[in-house]
């Protein structure tokens, strides 16, 4: 039986969402396939790594159980022995426990995980892992970079601009002048964060500066985008490597003046002004409040899917990702908005509707990861040379 380590948590604002994705959407279905031994690895908010079977229990995180575990449990060590092996001191006579890992399923949303940092470690360890690689993750998690890359491939976005946060105080006039070229309403966003953190919808100039400062507080780069008139917002989950497979085009149901902030997305089941804590699961959230498939004409549907697949391939995604797009229902234009290399809960609710059960989804992702790794093994990246002899 293959051993798959699921790594979740992390030093990220989306730490808690990551726990739900890992436990509900990944670990459980992997175990239900009866093909894998699943090892949970939790990265605490301070960056410490823990490996323990108890980490699979959601109730641990809902009270003080996790703090108790972290107080008592030894830190996990990693051995890069041409692959990846986990180590930790055992509870009996100091004996170490170890486990060779055959594959890793990164389940960390946001910074230091989804952005490619974790993938870098896994590439160094030469262990197969699920999802996007280092470069695709880094591009996808950077809204500025993803727009630059897709724009160069001829994929349309709404008019936008960006700046470094440190420039806000030093070059404010230039920044505001560039923003003046855009039409209101605008969206001001930190370039690297997900789950709508630090995002402001700005309807008039008097509110702009505050929004820029909020975003700059969270990130070293800020992006400002022009909103779409006659907006239909859609999202498309995609899996696959060389031949990406789309799920169903999904349409969050919202009014044009609304967007989902973190609170609404994960705490209120996608309902504005809803009760707090209405949804326990981050995999529900806004996903419990959308139209699947999107209610658009076949022509527009196919166009959006085509744009989504094009974005996926251009960014170099593998495994799984989700492409967000904005449609102007009047002009029928489809604009690329964002790409998410690790959809919350794997967007399994959409895959279910598309006819792929959770156990089948994770099985396919494992196969894609194995296939990509096998292809990489065929490449020569280290070979002998006479270079050193000249010194």
């Amino acid at each position, binding site marked *: 039986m293959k051993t798959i380590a699921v790594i979740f948590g992390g030093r990220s604002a989306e730490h808690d969402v990551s726990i739900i994705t890992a436990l509900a959407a990944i670990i459980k279905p992997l175990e239900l396939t009866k093909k894998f031994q699943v090892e949970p690895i939790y990265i605490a908010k301070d960056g410490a790594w823990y490996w323990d079977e108890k980490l699979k229990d959601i109730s641990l995180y809902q009270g003080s159980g996790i703090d108790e575990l972290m107080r008592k449990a030894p830190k996990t060590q990693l051995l890069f022995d041409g692959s990846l092996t986990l180590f930790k001191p055992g509870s009996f006579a100091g004996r170490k426990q170890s486990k060779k890992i055959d594959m890793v399923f990164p389940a960390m949303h946001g910074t230091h995980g989804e952005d490619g940092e974790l993938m870098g470690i896994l590439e160094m360890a030469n262990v197969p892992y699920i999802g996007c690689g280092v470069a695709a993750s880094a591009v996808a998690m950077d809204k500025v970079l993803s727009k630059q890359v897709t724009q160069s491939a001829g994929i349309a976005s709404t008019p936008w601009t960006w700046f470094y946060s440190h420039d806000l105080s030093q070059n404010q006039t230039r920044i505001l002048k560039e923003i003046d070229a855009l039409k209101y309403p605008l969206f001001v966003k930190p370039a690297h964060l997900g789950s709508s953190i630090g995002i402001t919808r700005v309807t008039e100039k008097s509110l702009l500066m505050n929004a820029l400062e909020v975003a700059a507080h969270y990130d070293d780069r800020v992006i400002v985008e022009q909103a779409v008139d006659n907006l239909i917002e859609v999202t498309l989950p995609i899996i696959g490597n060389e031949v990406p497979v789309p799920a169903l085009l999904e349409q969050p149901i919202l009014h044009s003046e609304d967007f989902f902030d973190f609170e609404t997305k994960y705490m209120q089941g996608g309902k504005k002004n809803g009760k707090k804590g209405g949804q326990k699961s981050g995999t529900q959230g806004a996903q419990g409040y959308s139209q699947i498939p999107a209610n658009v004409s076949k022509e527009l549907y196919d166009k959006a899917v085509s744009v989504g697949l094009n974005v996926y391939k251009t960014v170099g995604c593998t495994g799984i990702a989700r492409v967000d797009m904005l449609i102007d229902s009047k002009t029928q234009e489809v604009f690329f908005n964002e790409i998410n290399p690790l959809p919350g809960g794997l967007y399994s609710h959409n895959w*279910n509707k598309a006819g792929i059960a*959770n156990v089948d989804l994770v099985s396919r992702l494992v196969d894609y990861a194995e296939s990509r790794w096998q292809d990489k093994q065929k490449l020569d990246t280290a070979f002998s040379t006479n270079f050193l002899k000249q010194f």
Partner: protein
Amino acid sequence: MRLLISLFSPNYPQTLVYMLQSTEYEAKPYLKWFWRTKDFSSVMYRRKLEKTRVASSLLLLISLGMVLQVVLGLALLYLGNHRGRLPLTLCGTLLVITYPFVWAHLLVLPLALGRLLVIKPLHKKLINESKAIFAKHPGTTIAVAGSYGKTSMKELLKTVLEQGKNVAATPANKNVAVSHAYFAKKLKGDEDVLIIEYGEGNPGDVVRFANTTQPNIGVITGLAPAHLDHYPSLQAAGKDIFSLAKAVGANKTFVNSDSEATKSFIKPDYHTYNSEKVMGWKISDIKVGFTGTSFEMSKGKQHLNLKSGLLGRHQVGPLALAAVLADQLGLSKTQIEAGVAKTVPFEYRMQPRSLNGAWILDDTYNGNIDGLRAGLVLLKDLPARRRIYVTPGLVDQGVETEAVHIELGKAIAAANPDKLVLMLNSVTKYIEAGLKQGNYQGELQIEHYPLDFYTNLEHLLAAGDVVMLQNDWTDNYN
């Protein structure tokens, strides 16, 4: 080793009472289960002990008894060692180590005594009193007997007939003599129709029930190897069930001829019902879906357009019989159609529910081969992206166990679901043999932990899937 540890575990007394409770305080099945158990710590898997008054009293009794025996044993051990008396030491040791076995068997003693001295005489009195009540009652009495489908038929008849008549029916699956007696006590005497379900308990029961309840009409719902631990053969079970025809008369006997095994018992004067015709009524245009079944009936100028919430082609015969009996008893076309429209699936009997866009047909109370065949036909009939069939097999098949399960395997192979999930137990090997003989082409999954499967369906299914769950094994069959 596991057995030894579980015998001396603090939970052992509770496990014994749970085993008794699960076998409905019947000594024989309880003791059979006890002697085939290899690990008492895993007995309470599907459910826990329900702390009723009886269960709590038994638990207290057995716990005290065990403690007393151990204390006495230790006292003898001490005395034996102290005084150098080997017999005392041996006695003491025996008392200490045998308490799990002693009390597992002593537990049935109060039950046996209670049954003999209190319950049996009380029941006899009640049954005699009920015989007089039934003899006096002016209403039409319909007896429902068979290996399966009795409760469904009874409920169906009640739902349809009460659209125009005052109907009383025995409750739930209370179908033995004492249940009939309690039912009789509650009658007011003004009911137009009584519907009484006859359970297949012991040989001769049907004749005894008929003597007490004196039915006017007999319905035989089907014959299959079920509860065959009480009968030596299917033939013997059939003979018993068809003794109902002698009690009501051949021309008042209605037999489900869709059930293969009834065919050899059907006599020319019996009325048969099936999915094609009943008593001169022809059935046509059967449509089956996730929300119900519809069909048309016609006889001469009479025509009925029937829509039921029950699922499956196999429901057509019983529904048609209910319609015909309702017609004979004087209900109007409107009343009959309204009555049939009110029939809905009973819990765990072909009960549909939706999950993530998939359909689950919960037929976990189905416990006979004809029912399983009907389920497979339904699964094949319904539109699906992927068809999944789930079963542990059947219990209480007696001498027919191997043959029935090979037959089941072949039936599954013929229906060819995309995926088959078998809950691992003692009959799995026979089903696999049948699958092989039938050349099954789909995916086979053997599930070691049924609860794991049933409680995680949302991870296993996707939109467009149709999954049929047929039968379920409680802990006492493991």
